[in-house]
């Protein structure tokens, strides 16, 4: 064809509103030309947008992949056509037909009229008569004729004969109908499984959203704590500009009850959470107590069989000295800024100034004059101390120096770390807590003493045995495990075997007073009879006893709202401070020996190698084990995101939370 003809043909086809010619295929062939008569209007057709959509969708559909269906799935899934045949309305027609074949032409019984009459409605006589004309065979019931009478009593099916073909056809139809039923059943099964899986997927989404909700709640609590902290600091700094801003007081005010963020070096943020990034070896016996002044500050640890706690610098991870003075194992220890208080089984409480433990060059010079062989402290002189330095001199001996001094907390010419010794308890001190100028101690002589740190005198003694026998409120007697609490307390020695730790070991727990904490004039103590007592230090009376634990209470902490106590009965209880009711009980697998809590979590040492963390908002447990302890954790303490734990493997591990 000449180009002119081609152009002509093109205009012929382009003139009517052709569908899809230009969009999908640029080629021009006879087929497209042949389509033009159709499009020109054989049938006055208008192309609708739907048609266009459908055609355009075709190419997109072809792009979609065709998955391979596994054989067993195929068996379960009837084909679409089969389903069509089973569910289309005419599928039932065979059944209807069969039923119709069983319709017997019976004499007109007037059933409809009967039923209407039974219901109390009027029947329409006109309708009745009209129908009767269309009746097939009317058999009259005349009693006279014998033949008819017999016929009336025969069963309806007597004269009905189907014939073999009809019956065979009916069998086949029934079989087909049954197949249809099976098909429909499998269709429904498939639908049900689909819906179930969709529900499962939606449930999973909902669970994830709820987790996110929990995290938001946690964040909110954290922000609240931060706000409190910032407000405190604000007050502090504004008051420091005033006349009486003593550094000492400012540090005291915010340290033990500090809940908000601490000052951490910026590198701390880069540490992986939940991993122990530093380990300190402290001798060879289990750690009995530890505390630190601030993250990356000064740490003091005490071990069993060792009367001299070690002092560490957390920035470098090295031991900087020891506190010599005690004779027995240190059971209780607290560090606040540069002040350290220790209580030991010798019944004495000592206060130390940690700044003096740091080995200076000046300190080493005075020991040239009083160099002596290593000598232990003798308890009777007021406040002698020996500062020992781990670095040995060139001749390999450990330089020791001893200086006696008055029991005084002022700086002296003779340096020494021990600042004061408080004696008064008759048995070993097992728990202590100090804040500002008040120190409270609990000892195995079953008394609690309050001391004034400025004078060094005991201000009050509170006897637990007396409190037990004179309860302020009548106990409801709901302690099944401790019916003879008073009796065991009155008995001389208190010794309870601990439940086995995770590694199977156990020991005899003999600390009658496991933990104390005070704030202004309120004091809370946890004791070996399982009771948590709240005392008023102005009167010296226990005004409330919280009963619930069935084992000795080993650790406790309180804030404005809650008291949290952990005990050897493998549980941690959260009490309401104001009413004494229990908020929550958290169960563990082994006895709890140490805990600390804030608004979002409770970190506890529960007889396992890992440190247990309980999330209070989501109520989930987690454990820190990476690079962790090899024997159960005994004590722990954390500040903001810096956690220290000491275990029976004689190591202290430092974690980033």
């Amino acid at each position, binding site marked *: 064809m000449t180009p002119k*003809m081609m152009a002509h043909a093109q205009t012929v086809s382009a003139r009517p509103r052709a569908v899809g010619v230009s969009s999908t*295929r640029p080629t021009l062939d006879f087929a497209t030309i042949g*389509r033009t008569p159709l499009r020109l209007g054989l049938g006055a057709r208008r192309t609708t947008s739907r048609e266009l959509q459908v055609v355009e*969708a075709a190419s997109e559909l072809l792009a979609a992949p065709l998955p391979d269906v596994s054989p067993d799935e195929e068996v379960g899934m009837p084909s679409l056509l089969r389903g069509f045949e089973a569910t289309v309305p005419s599928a039932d027609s065979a059944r209807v037909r069969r039923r119709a074949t069983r319709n017997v032409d019976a004499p007109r019984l007037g059933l409809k009229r009967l039923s209407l009459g039974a219901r109390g409605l009027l029947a329409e006589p006109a309708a009745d008569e009209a129908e009767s004309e269309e009746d097939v065979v009317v058999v009259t019931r005349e009693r006279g004729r014998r033949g008819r009478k017999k016929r009336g009593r025969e069963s309806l099916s007597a004269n009905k004969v189907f014939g073999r073909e009809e019956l065979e056809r009916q069998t086949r139809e029934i079989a087909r109908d049954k197949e249809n039923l099976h098909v429909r059943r499998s269709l429904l099964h498939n639908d049900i499984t689909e819906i179930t899986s969709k529900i499962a997927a939606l449930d999973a989404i909902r669970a994830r959203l709820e987790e996110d909700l929990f995290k938001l709640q946690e964040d909110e609590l954290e922000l609240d704590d931060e706000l409190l902290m910032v407000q405190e600091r604000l007050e502090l700094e504004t008051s420091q500009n005033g006349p009486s801003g003593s550094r000492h007081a400012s540090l005291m005010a915010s340290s033990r009850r500090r809940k908000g963020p601490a000052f951490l070096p910026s590198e701390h943020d880069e540490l992986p959470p939940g991993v122990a990034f530093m380990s300190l070896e402290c001798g060879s016996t289990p750690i009995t107590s530890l505390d630190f002044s601030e993250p990356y500050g000064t740490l003091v640890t005490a071990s069993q069989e060792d009367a001299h706690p070690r002092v560490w610098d957390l920035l470098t991870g090295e031991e900087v000295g020891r506190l010599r003075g005690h004779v027995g194992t240190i059971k209780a220890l607290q560090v606040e800024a540069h002040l350290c208080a220790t209580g030991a089984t010798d019944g004495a409480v000592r206060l130390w100034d940690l700044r003096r433990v740091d080995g200076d060059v000046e300190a080493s010079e005075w020991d040239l004059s009083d160099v002596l062989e290593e000598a232990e402290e003798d308890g009777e002189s007021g406040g002698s101390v020996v500062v020992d330095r781990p670095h040995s001199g060139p001749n390999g001996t450990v330089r020791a120096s001893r200086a006696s001094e008055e029991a005084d907390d002022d700086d002296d010419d003779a340096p020494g770390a021990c600042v004061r010794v408080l004696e008064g308890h008759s048995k070993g001190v097992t728990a202590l807590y100090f804040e500002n100028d008040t120190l409270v101690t609990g000892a195995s002589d079953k008394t609690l003493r309050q001391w004034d740190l400025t004078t060094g005198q005991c201000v009050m003694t509170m006897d637990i045995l007396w409190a037990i026998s004179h309860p302020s409120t009548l106990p409801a007697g709901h302690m099944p495990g401790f019916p003879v609490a008073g009796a065991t307390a009155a008995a001389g020695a208190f010794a309870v075997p601990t439940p086995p730790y995770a590694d199977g070991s156990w020991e005899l727990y003999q600390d009658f007073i496991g933990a104390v904490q005070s704030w202004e004039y309120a004091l809370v103590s946890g004791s070996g009879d399982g009771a948590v007592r709240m005392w008023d230090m102005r009167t010296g009376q226990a005004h409330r006893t919280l009963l619930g634990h069935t084992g000795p209470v080993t650790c406790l902490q309180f804030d404005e709202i809650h008291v949290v106590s952990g005990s050897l009965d493998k549980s941690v209880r959260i009490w309401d401070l104001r009413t004494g009711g229990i908020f929550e009980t958290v169960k563990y697998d082994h006895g709890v020996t140490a805990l600390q809590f804030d608004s979002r979590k409770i970190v506890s040492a529960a007889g396992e190698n890992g440190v247990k963390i309980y999330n209070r908002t989501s109520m989930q447990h987690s454990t820190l084990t990476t690079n962790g302890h090899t024997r159960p954790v005994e004590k722990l303490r954390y500040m903001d995101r810096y956690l220290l734990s000491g275990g029976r493997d004689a190591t202290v591990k430092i974690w980033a939370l």
Partner: protein
Amino acid sequence: MKTAEVPYAADAELSLSFDELQVLRTQYEKELAQSHVTTQTKFNYAWGLVKSPIREHQVEGVQLLADIYRSEPKRRRECLYYLALGHYKMGNFDEARSFNSRLLEREPTNLQAQSLDSLIDTALKREGYVGMAIAGGAAAVGTLLLAGLIRRATRK
């Protein structure tokens, strides 16, 4: 792999009665109102629509089939055939051919697909003949006109 059970193309020419189609439509709309349409209902309605001789119905039917194709990957093989059949009935032979050939790639032994294939071929050829006839006719008319013009020009 089992071949899909699909009807021959001739089945698509048999349309359902109006009442039957109405029942299918009601069923479909009822499930729509409950916002959960089962695939079978959708297919029933779509197949009923495709079988009808009215073009609008066919278009709607093909649309529904395309929906099923998109949303149910397990049913795609069967849908390929039905889509091919639908487009064939509507006259979109190219789309019909592409769907059908896709199916034949997967199932070369499918009898119905093969028969549909030959049907599409025949239809295309027929259109081709018609096209040739038109083109020829147009060419003839064109030459006549040209001849007339030239004669007129040379005469004057």
